[in-house]
């Protein structure tokens, strides 16, 4: 089985979010970048397929040279090859189109991406990619098995889950659950050493027009005062939950 894992390069979850250039750009100053958490779960599932069933695992990112450290980390975790499509990611559609080319060229059976990137929270690249290459698609995937070219996936739905079966080629958008948190791997020294020797192919982008553009950014409005209540006087709180929050 040939697996491609899509890796988005995102600010670490503890990052302070600021904007520069008159609020038209995300300020990367002092920001640590990591593998998008949803993709890390997916990559770990790919390693499971590699080790238990035999599979090759490529990782791909659409982005500038600065994302290579993130791809190297994916190689250190155990991916075989990395591909970087050498163009800045401008919108979900443009990224999906670039990935579609890589996916077609590589003839992958299974493509694992993440439910959403924690930076722009688009939640659109995997579905668009699937549609563009005519593959089946499962979103919010929290369980995945592949046997004889048939996939069984568990999808998280509101208030529960459902079990789906489908054929390959398949794109899944994974999240925590596709593997557990405790299964995630921290690259060890050997992995890091080996990653240095693994191929990281830089490929030329397709000429593609984005369909959306980020015009401006804003920070959330500063929050008003917190109303504090005495533990001995909850009546006023209950009154406000009623009149102000309209909770009951």
């Amino acid at each position: 089985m040939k697996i491609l894992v899509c890796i988005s390069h995102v600010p670490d979850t503890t990052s302070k979010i600021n904007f520069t250039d008159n609020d038209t750009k995300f300020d990367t100053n002092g920001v640590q970048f990591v593998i998008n958490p949803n993709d890390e779960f997916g990559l770990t599932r790919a390693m499971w397929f590699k080790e238990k069933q035999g599979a090759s695992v490529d990782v791909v990112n659409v982005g500038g040279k600065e994302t290579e450290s993130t791809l190297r980390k994916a190689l250190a975790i155990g991916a075989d090859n990395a591909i970087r499509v050498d163009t800045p990611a401008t919108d979900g559609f443009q990224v999906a189109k670039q990935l579609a080319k890589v996916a077609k060229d590589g003839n992958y059976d299974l493509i694992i991406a993440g439910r959403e990137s924690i930076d722009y929270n688009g939640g659109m690249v995997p579905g668009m990619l699937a549609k563009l290459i005519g593959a089946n698609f499962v979103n919010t995937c929290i369980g995945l098995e592949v046997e004889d070219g048939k996939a069984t996936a568990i999808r998280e739905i509101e208030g529960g889950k459902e079990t789906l079966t489908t054929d390959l080629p398949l794109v899944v958008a994974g999240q925590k659950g596709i593997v557990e948190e405790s299964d995630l791997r921290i690259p060890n020294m050997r992995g890091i050493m080996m990653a240095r020797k693994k191929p990281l192919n830089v490929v030329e982008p397709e000429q593609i027009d984005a369909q959306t553009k980020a015009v401006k950014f804003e920070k959330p409005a500063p929050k008003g005062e917190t109303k504090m209540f005495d533990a001995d006087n909850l009546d006023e709180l209950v009154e406000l939950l009623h009149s102000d929050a309209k909770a009951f």
Partner: protein
Amino acid sequence: MSVLVYTESENGKFKKTTYETVSYAKGIAEKMGTSVTAVAINAEDHAALGKYGADKVLTVSNDKLNKFNAEAYADVIAQAAKKEEAKVVVIGQSANDKYLAPLLAVELEAGYASNVVALPESTEPFQVKRSAFTNKGFNITEITTAVKVVGIAKNAYGLKENQADAAVEAFEPTLGEEDFAINIESVDKATNKVTIADAEIVVSGGRGLKGPENWGMIEDLAETLGAALACSKPVSDMGWRPHEEHVGQTGKPVASNLYIAIGISGAIQHLAGVNASKHKLVINNDADAPFFKAADYGVVGDAFEIVPKLTEKIKAFKAENN
């Protein structure tokens, strides 16, 4: 030309968020000087859509569509959009909406903006505000394609009544085998539980509650309020509560009317996922807990003392005012 809105239903019934989505579509239609056409799949009570501004309802009834199927549903909506020559297609942001939206966008060659939180600031060029960086920022996005797909986030716009007489018209899309390449083998869903996605109120517990045996009082409070249950990440990691209840940046997002956090410190990853809630009440015995800064209401004190008391007082208030 009209604004097309997909109206999600479950077992034939529309949800409150569906009416919010229709209200929002009406808001866009007014800005663009056009009407609203809704498309509803296997739903009843179409007239209710008129109350929130739908001028026309395309009703699809087809047994093959009894279970949600993203590819098939996206195909139905795309066909309706083409028939109506819609320039803007509005959808909600439920799990199913988010599943079908990218498929729909590609089908319509439309740019898609997700997690939109307000009416377009301008419709030419078409610019909408969306939340990004897991609620740590907003981004004004311009959709540059002729047809646009807009996903409106739950509780961002609210319900706006706007009576129109909805004309009901049966619509029969053409569906093929390729629409059903994914087979739904089984659905496992608690039917009697309020889900985090649908809940108006969410009651959430953290590590401060010391152990799973102490959740009784949390459940009582939630039941009194008709609220969904949630928890912080370590609580689900330790197996005190099921994974479905984990909320935050890497768990489920919460955008309820009221979020009650009990014994939760307010780590940045937790806050990011719940900040979209309108009102937040924090109960914590540490006056310096970071969560208080993000809260609307705070009570400093021992949860084991406060929570049962609060539940009793809410019960009494409800009894008195009913």
